[in-house]
Every structure is written in structure tokens, then in C-alpha cells.
């Protein structure tokens, strides 16, 4: 884990430099550039960087179609409004989804902490709570999609409210995000099982890759989960609020 001493081939500790000279020294060093990070965590970060580019391309193309259309863009505040108990509230479902995803990030961050402390029970519960939040998020998204498709008549090629590009941007961006959440829920359930059965504590090989992993696995799946939350922050701002 992260605070073991970094050693060279002969087992001698390597002097760690801080600040910008540290960046130069890490990147030019022998064997590994990302020190004090398990390889899986570095790889997850690099995957997330590539995923950032994918989502950014979606959001940028959304920006482009929205800037180029001469037809007014549908008012998202109204499109995503719900009438709850006779009360007309704009964007309410999206707000609830936002709070749910943030809460799932909170429980995930704590699961990582308790994982490193080897508290198996509470770690499992927190991961399961995260998965439950995630699943309810996807459920609300299904509700949102079906309302838009069946009641409002939104299609990828047009809609009654305004610019034809609205549907394409909406289904592509939220669909890809929802897919990420769904994959995340599956990953969380797998990791929760590994924590519960003690696979991580005893470094038992995984069923899929056969690699041994400790509690850094919880942090790695946590990184993915926080990233899903992070993407939602941008979707919420650019697609729903703009």
C-alpha cells in the first residue's frame, strides 16, 4: 500500500523528492514513475483520463449543436419538471438524482477508509449502500427516459419542444453515463463480495484474472465510482442547468 518505503532493485530505499523537482525525478526514475501507488490504481487513473476525453467529446459536440441551431433549445427546466402532490417543481427529479449520486460517493469514500482499516463488515455494508444508491439512480433514469419518450415524444431525431438535436444529445450523454453507473453497480457488488468473504484480506486470486488483490481494490473501484459522480456534476451543469 501507499506508505511502504519505495526501494530500488537492491532493496535500498530511494530518496523521494517533493514538488516540481519531484515530478522530474519520479518521471525520470528507474522502473516506475508513479511511486507509492499500486499499479492497478495508476491504471485506473489512466483509464479515467481516457474516459474523461470520451465524455468531453460528447459534451463538446452537444455544445456545438446547441450553438449552431437556429431553433430555440428546449427549456430543460420545464422539460424535466415534475408535478408532485399537485405542486409543479422544475428539475426536481434531476436534483434528487444529483443528491443520490453524491450520497453514493460519500458512502464509497468511507468504504475505502474502512477497507484500509480492514473492517470487513462495515466496508461491505458501505459498498452495498453505494451500489443501492447507484441502482436507484439508474431506476430514476429509466423513469426519466420513459417519461420523455412516451409522454413528451422526444426522439433522437426530433421533439415537439424545440431543436431537433436535443434528443440525440440527451440520449447519448445520459445514456452513456447511465451505462457507466450500471457497470459501476456490478463492479461494486463484485468487490463487496470479495470484502465480505475475506478474499481481499487473504489476498486470494480473483475469479476473473486470477490476480491477487488487497484492499487497494476497494479504492480502485471507488475511483471509478467517484468519476461517475464527477461526470454527473458536469452533465448537471451543462445539460440540465445551462
Amino acid at each position: 500500500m501507499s506508505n511502504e518505503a519505495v526501494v530500488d532493485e537492491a532493496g535500498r530505499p530511494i530518496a523521494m523528492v517533493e514538488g516540481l523537482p519531484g515530478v522530474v525525478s519520479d518521471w525520470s526514475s528507474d522502473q516506475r514513475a508513479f511511486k507509492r501507488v499500486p499499479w492497478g490504481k495508476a491504471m485506473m487513473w489512466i483509464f479515467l483520463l481516457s474516459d474523461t476525453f470520451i465524455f468531453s467529446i460528447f459534451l463538446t459536440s452537444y455544445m456545438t449543436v446547441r450553438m449552431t441551431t437556429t431553433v430555440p433549445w428546449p427549456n430543460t427546466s420545464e422539460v424535466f419538471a415534475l408535478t408532485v402532490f399537485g405542486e409543479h417543481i422544475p428539475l426536481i427529479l434531476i436534483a434528487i438524482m444529483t443528491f443520490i449520486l453524491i450520497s453514493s460517493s460519500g458512502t464509497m469514500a468511507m468504504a475505502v477508509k474502512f477497507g484500509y482499516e480492514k473492517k470487513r463488515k462495515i466496508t461491505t455494508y458501505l459498498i452495498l449502500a453505494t451500489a443501492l444508491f447507484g441502482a436507484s439512480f439508474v431506476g430514476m433514469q429509466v423513469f426519466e427516459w420513459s417519461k420523455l419518450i412516451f409522454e413528451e415524444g422526444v426522439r433522437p431525431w426530433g421533439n415537439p419542444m424545440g431543436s431537433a438535436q436535443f434528443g440525440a444529445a440527451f440520449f447519448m450523454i445520459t445514456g452513456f453515463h447511465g451505462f457507466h453507473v450500471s457497470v459501476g453497480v456490478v463492479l461494486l457488488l463484485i468487490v463487496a463480495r470479495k470484502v465480505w468473504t475475506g478474499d481481499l484480506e487473504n489476498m486470494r486470486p480473483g475469479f476473473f484474472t486470477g490476480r491477487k488483490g488487497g484492499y487497494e481494490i476497494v479504492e480502485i473501484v471507488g475511483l471509478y465510482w467517484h468519476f461517475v459522480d464527477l461526470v454527473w456534476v458536469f452533465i448537471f451543469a451543462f445539460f440540465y442547468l445551462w
Partner: protein
Amino acid sequence: MSEATAEVQEHPIAIYFWVWGLLFVLSAMSYMVDYMQFQGYLRWSLILLFMFLKAGFIIAFFMHMRYERLALACAILIPTGCLLVLIGLMSFEANHTYDTRGAYLDAGPGIMVVQESEKPH
């Protein structure tokens, strides 16, 4: 350096509750921007401000970037900046497309006056 590494294992749980609460407050505030129907530059700057604050807190604390070595933070965060070039180029292009559509496609509300220099030769 040792203090930074010791922190990785032992974060007090309070910090997560604080960040959690802060994210709730920031989300509520960005929702209020819509609810109160702020418009124009006020709306956009508030949305962007809350968005970047939320993103920053998630990356720094939940994703532990604050506790990582600078070499990793640079490798992940600096390439993201390239996206600004993409966004900049696409918005230039989009403005041009919008102007052209306004001038040639329809005479709707989006019509623009085509400047002499922008006319096709």
C-alpha cells in the same frame, strides 16, 4: 514527505462528512440558480463556479488526489487541459456555422448580418 504518506491511511472520517455536506450545499445552490431563474452571465458564472468547486472537492478528497504525489496529479490533470483547445476550436466553428445558417438557411430569429470579410468569394 512522510507526513503526506502517513495521511493516506489515516484520514479522519470527519473529512468525508464535511466534503459530503459541502457537495450537498453546492448542489442545492446550483439547483437554486435554476429555481430562482437567474439568467445571463450571472447564471452561467454561478453554474460554472459551483461545478468547478464540486469537481475539485470530489477529485481532491474523495479521489485522494490531494494525497498523491505531484507526478501522478500532473499526469492526469494536465492532459485534461488539452480539452480547452478542443472546446475553443469547436466554439469558433459553431459560431461560424450559426452565422452562416442565419444568413442563408432561414430568416428566423437567429438571423445575423454577414460581414464583408465573411462573405463567400
